């Protein structure tokens, strides 16, 4: 287990290094230089050269890369050129908004899909199973912005049940803010539904084939008790581990949903700063998201190892 964890941490560090290098190199090939962008078109060549020197833009690529990396680690993330704000505070604020949206999506979908998956697994190949399987697959393959448009048209425009925007008016209570987040959360939840329900279903079917399940029936335990204390308890752990592994997907989904609902989260920030060539923000946001994804995946692996003990990881015994 310890060896496995160490090798995973090493792999994460390597992947993050590759990602950060990729971002850094990408930003270097941008047309125009940093100082010119900051000072505007009327700056003299001398002014540009002085600022370039001050910013360290005249240093070789490697030196700049490592000083940037050092700045990132120590929390010195620089200033956004587009928004004129310190990047650290900007990203942390947007991250908070995104986490709230993601939390709403998780809280809505996890219980529903786990229950649907277990119910489907209990009656394998029954009508409910077919419905959950086909529904899950169809919802998973449809892009978030497509389901988002359909949901908006039905629930916000047709029925007027929910607001069309995702951001509540300033000064609203927490409850009202949550109400505005229901509609954006559903497309994210749709894509997750298929994965989670499939996992819960597979776990349930697995349990039904175990001898202890038969023993429980033959002992004459009531069906409800069997489902709660045997099926759910054993089908849940792998499902929990899979849920933690969905963060990679979730970050991509957030970019799309935040763009559709014009929600000021970190996904929208990344998209706007990339298309607006706001380099300091792009670099910091990418590395932050990369870090979150890698840590979540590590957490998923650890959860899997702890919750599903019969699966041994990385040959460690």
């Amino acid at each position, binding site marked *: 287990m310890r060896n496995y964890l160490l090798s995973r941490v090493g792999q994460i560090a*390597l992947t993050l290094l590759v990602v950060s290098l990729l971002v850094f190199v990408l930003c270097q090939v941008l047309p125009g230089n940093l100082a010119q962008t900051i000072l505007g078109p009327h700056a003299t060549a001398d002014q540009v050269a002085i600022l370039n020197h001050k910013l360290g833009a005249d240093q070789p690529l490697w030196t700049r890369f490592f000083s940037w990396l050092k700045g990132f680690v120590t929390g010195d993330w620089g200033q956004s050129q587009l928004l004129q704000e310190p990047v650290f505070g900007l990203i942390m604020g947007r991250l908070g908004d995104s986490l709230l949206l993601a939390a709403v999506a998780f809280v809505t979908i996890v219980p529903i899909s786990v229950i649907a998956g277990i119910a489907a697994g209990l009656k394998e190949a029954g009508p409910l199973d077919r419905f959950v399987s086909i529904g899950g697959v169809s919802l998973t393959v449809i*892009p978030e*912005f497509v389901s988002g448009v359909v949901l908006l*048209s039905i629930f916000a425009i047709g029925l007027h049940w929910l607001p069309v925007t995702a951001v509540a008016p300033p000064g609203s209570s927490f409850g009202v803010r949550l109400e505005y987040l229901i509609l954006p959360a559903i497309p994210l939840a749709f894509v997750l539904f298929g994965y989670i329900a499939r996992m819960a279903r597979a776990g349930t079917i697995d349990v039904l084939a175990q001898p202890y399940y038969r023993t429980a029936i033959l002992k004459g335990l009531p069906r409800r008790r069997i489902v709660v204390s045997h099926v759910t308890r054993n089908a849940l752990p792998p499902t929990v581990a899979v849920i933690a592994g969905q963060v990679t997907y979730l*970050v*991509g989904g957030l*970019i799309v949903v935040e763009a559709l609902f014009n929600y000021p989260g970190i996904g929208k920030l990344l*998209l706007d700063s990339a298309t607006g060539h706001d380099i300091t923000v792009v670099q910091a946001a990418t590395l932050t998201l990369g870090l979150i*994804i890698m840590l979540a995946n590590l957490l998923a692996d650890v959860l899997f190892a702890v919750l599903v003990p019969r699966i041994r990881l990385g040959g460690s015994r």
Partner: protein
Amino acid sequence: MTDQPTTRQTLAPEPNGKTPHDPGPPESPADAKANRTRRNRRYIIKTLSTSPTFISGAVIVLFWVFVGVAWQLVVPHDPQAVDPFHSFEPPSSTHLLGTDNLGRDVLSRVLAGAQTVLLIAPAATVLAVIFGALLGLVAGYYGGIVDIFVMRAVDVLMAIPTLIVAVLVLGILGSSLLNVIILIAVFFVPQIARTVRGSVGDEVQKGYVEAARMRGERGFYSMVIEVLPNVTSPILVEATIRLGYAVFTAATLSFLGLGLQPPSPDWGRTISEQRAYIEISPWALLAPAIALATFIVGVNLAADGLRKAFK
């Protein structure tokens, strides 16, 4: 002559009552192989033609392929014709799906918008299959250090969140049809390489690869001539599954404004363009959204049918 009785026994009438054909001279190995392939192919075609999943998927996909190729023949209006006096019109007999903010006919734009996704997704998939299959073949055939190196690289590549990288690359470098195709292909290479590597690994265990090596066939030759034909089914299945993801990714990128630029009637692009007017003319967003949903579900149904038939 001692084995005469057993031979006669196998020549006994089959359960269906027909007398079997004279087996004639024994089949050569090549004939046997050809027969097996033919029988296998007939089985697959039969499974596919009786699978409702595959047929409904194929019909939907073929419909959109036809529209993508021949949209000029089927559109009721010019998809780019701007008519400011008739903007935001609800569906009517002249404009079956209404008009958008510039008075353009929504139905015509939806029909004309099929072609970009139909171009990007298959092109990216084919590109990814070629490179992924090559990598998987090389890794599985040579094994050892080559295998470890390729598969480690694949692991690292697969851990990278694709949409973030796409936003970075296309947002910073700017977007073009070719950029989008190459990027999606790069994202799919690792998964295909892994699948092919798995199948090749099984094949290499079989005697014929060893025989080819003993015969002195060169590595590349025996890889392409001996191994590749035996792993085409998994490659084909993987390719159709990837095709579904390619449509998903291509549409998402163009929705994010990282695909084609306006006034392209591309579905994803149109949805983001019309987003501001959703309260006035929801039909201008719903139409491309539903078109995209049917196409994606169609591709996935076909892929699912294919996967089951090849099992």
